[in-house]
């Protein structure tokens, strides 16, 4: 099962719609990383609004993905955590998902853009002639 990774300029978007197997997770991560590298992505938004359960495995997948992306220089935002998913993670004693979280994609993009604007390596705003794949 492939997770699509559309691009919005130098920002990547991806949505995890359902539970991943070990293999799926690995595949997703390596796809994302090579895309980040290819495009020199500045930021990634991971949308988990479709997940009504996040267990420790999925939490690790999300966290690891965020760490990997950061190592390649991309800012990470996780958006769409459902309220009871957040509550269950906290009750389980799950470490906070390292990334910053926003309610939805729109806010995620805004936050990302604000953060990116503060970066030293940010040169131009104009990569808008690139479209969604």
């Amino acid at each position: 099962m492939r997770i699509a990774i559309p691009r919005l300029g130098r920002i990547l978007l991806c949505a995890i719609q359902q539970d991943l197997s070990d293999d799926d997770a690995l595949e997703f991560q390596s796809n994302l990383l090579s895309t980040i590298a290819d495009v020199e992505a500045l930021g990634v938004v991971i949308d988990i609004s479709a997940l009504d359960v996040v267990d420790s495995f999925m939490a690790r997948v999300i966290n690891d993905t965020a760490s990997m992306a950061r190592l390649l220089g991309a800012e990470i935002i996780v958006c769409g955590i459902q309220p009871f998913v957040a509550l269950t993670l906290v009750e389980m004693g799950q470490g906070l998902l390292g990334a910053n979280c926003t309610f939805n994609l729109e806010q995620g993009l805004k936050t990302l853009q604000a953060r990116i604007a503060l970066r030293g390596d940010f040169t131009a705003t104009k990569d808008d002639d690139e479209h969604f794949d």
Partner: protein
Amino acid sequence: MSAHNHLAALNLLLTTQRPEILEKWTAEILKSWSKRLPNTFNVSEMRLHTAQLLEQVSQIFACYPTHGLWDFPESHPLALIMSEFSASRAVAGFTPTETAQYVMSLKSVLTLALIRVGITSAAELETNLSAVEDVIGRLTLVTFSAFVATRERIILGQSASLIDLSTPVIRLWDRVLLLPLVGVIDTARARKFTENLLEAITRYEASVTVIDVTGVPVFDTAVARHLMKTVDAAQLLGTRVVMTGLNPEGALTLTKLGITMPNVITRATLRTGVAEALALIGRRIVTIPSSQS
């Protein structure tokens, strides 16, 4: 059911002296309930009820088994009648004793009446008395447990509504929520307000949540833990948390527990906390230049 009439004395009593027994029983009840406010029961209704009950009880004695005890399952019509009666007493605010007295007083009336008859055979007296003990005793138990069950249901119902009402989540401003905590925070309440808060944060996409604990009298380790869970989950959703109203004792407890609340803006008063919250969304409260005071 056999009509062996080994309870001859008792049955004779109930046939020939019914009105007197009824009157004595009713008098006992009225004595026990005399402290009751007049509006809580209707005397003529009560007399009707006791008359019917005595009729039922008489029929039971008429068919009482020669061996073994009276068969009185939960589904017995009399059990249902007594449960209903008892439940209505509980709802009307009668005490457990007053309710149990209703049935128990019949036992003393019948026992005394039996003794007065002057049964010569000790064995016969014993048989009659134990039948009274058996039937009235079981009826009393059913009455009592129905009373308790009803009381429990009432209490639980009330706690549930208290839990619901007690911690509303307030929309202070566009994307700013306020959760005023008042009173004792136990696990049930903490769960409820946490769930309500998290749903509200998601629904209104609240950028800031103010949690005010001014009204929490006791800040112990349990309360601190509940609060931390709420704060952690709220932050996980992406809201900024402002906590206000902590008193010195609360500050002490939290620190001793090693809870430092990073990322939470803490302010002593609700007023300053609200000002902070508004600032976070780019707003502040100003005097309108032309207003008259």
